[in-house]
């Protein structure tokens, strides 16, 4: 049985790979640098996203964090005048980070035509009502983890039916370690005509990596160490001040 099945599978695979839909991806996207190193001096970073889209289309680039279910507290008024956390709500599958760069003509202030494309935040609302989702976006924008950038694209001819694009995007300082998805879309006549994606990793390096590892994997030791260093620093300062003339 197995022997008869194998040639059939090989032929089927060859046919599928030859079909146009399974050709190697025509359009591409990549970032420079290809990974973000979060060292002691990290304070956000400007990255360059390059890629190709079909000739005649305009580019939209998205950088998405991991999508997860998140619980939030909802604030409301108790007794009609005191603001406090009154309830909680879970938003399903919302990305931790959402950075978008769009050609001016495509985004056009985020009107109905943009919404129809399904590339914006509306596509990721995780079952939330309009009001809650609006507050969620405000919260994320305050942390600079959600941002929309209009314009800034440069184009150049690539080959017969594609054009190369380049855009610089700001990565926030509050970025966490993880793998982020970078997507490039070609948009023409109100439709998405191409799609390409790649991964970009952000990882802790140097001192932050050492400390992060210790805090999460040797927590008790880390706590004791933090206390001892604090006490020593306190004692050291006392000595320094005494030598300089005067506890009295």
């Amino acid at each position, binding site marked *: 049985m197995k022997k008869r099945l194998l040639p059939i599978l090989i032929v089927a695979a060859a046919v599928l790979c030859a079909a146009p839909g399974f050709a190697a991806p025509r359009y591409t996207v990549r970032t420079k640098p290809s990974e973000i190193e979060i060292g002691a001096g990290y*304070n956000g970073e400007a990255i360059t996203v390059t890629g190709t889209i079909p000739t005649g289309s305009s580019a939209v680039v998205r950088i998405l964090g991991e999508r997860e279910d998140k619980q*939030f507290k909802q604030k409301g008024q108790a007794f009609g005048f*005191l603001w406090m956390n009154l309830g909680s709500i879970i938003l399903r599958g919302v990305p931790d980070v959402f950075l978008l760069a769009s050609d001016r003509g495509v985004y056009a202030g985020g009107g109905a035509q943009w919404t129809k494309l399904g590339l914006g935040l509306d596509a990721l609302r995780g079952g939330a009502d309009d009001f809650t989702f609006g507050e969620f976006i405000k919260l994320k924008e305050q942390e600079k983890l959600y941002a929309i950038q209009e314009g800034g694209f440069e184009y150049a001819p690539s080959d017969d039916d594609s054009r190369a694009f380049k855009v610089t995007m700001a990565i926030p*300082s509050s970025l966490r370690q993880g793998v982020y998805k970078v997507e490039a879309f070609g948009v023409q006549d109100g439709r998405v005509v191409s799609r390409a994606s790649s991964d970009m990793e952000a990882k802790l390096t140097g001192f*932050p990596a050492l400390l992060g590892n210790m805090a999460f994997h040797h927590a008790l030791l880390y*706590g004791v160490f*933090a206390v001892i260093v*604090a006490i020593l620093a306190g004692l050291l*300062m006392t000595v320094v001040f005494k030598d300089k003339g005067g506890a009295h």
Partner: protein
Amino acid sequence: MWHMYLPIAGNSVNVILIFGLGGFVGLLSGIFGVGGGFLMTPLLIMFGIPPTVAAASDSNQIVGASTSGCLAHYRLGNVDFKMGLLLLVGGVLGGYAGVEVIKLLRAMGNANFLINITYVLMLGFVGVYMFIDSVQGLRKKPSSGEPAKPVKKSNYAAMMEKLPLQTSFEKSGVRMSMLMPLVLGVLVGVLSAIMGVGGGFIMVPVMVYLLRMPMHVVVGTSLFQILFTCINVTILQSYTNHTVDFVLALLLLLGSTIGAQFGTRLSKRLKGEQLKILLASLVLVVMVKMLLNLLLTPDVLLAYSGGH
């Protein structure tokens, strides 16, 4: 330039800004004998540090600031170890009881409401009482260096004398039952666990008004007690919640240990009543800010779950 990434807080901060913040709060810590957690944590949150990380890392830096402040006060003869130890034992017991109270409140719902209201009422009561008392003190004895001894022999004083286990606290110059600091320590421990703060700003008025200690001994002894409370909190938070950002704490520490030294010197130059009036004003400012937070519509009506 001048920025540093904090791995636990998950954000980068301006080193000079954090250093300055530490210096400012350290100064207050040295002057008043308060840990400053009730000021520092909201300031750190304002600069983009997650609330749970802000509170836990602040405890870590208070360990350094209070070591420095406590030692400086010890040299000036301002630490009553006997009183401090009794308050500490009471505070630890009260802390555990407070955690249980919080659990009970959460189970009943509305815990946040009660925490916020407790905060505003406590701060309001302590602030107003201290303010009025010290203004009266300044009017009566404009040139007096030490706070006046209680003139009236109240029912409270009579009750204190009747309690068993009477002992004398030489540094503070008072004689009372050992049960007094122990029980008051428990009460402050319960309140500070509910409110999630070190408790210095409650402990100081308790020492002044209920234990009747002189203001300068109060400051040194309060720092002694805060030091041990914050060691406990730092280790517990590191172990259970991984919320202590050591880099953040170290930056704050550099500022606050220097600030605490200046604060201690400044404290010696100020009169007891002046110290009280300044602390009362500070407590009232924080109370008004918290009250406004409760009354004014927040910018965003959604917050992350976890931490309070």
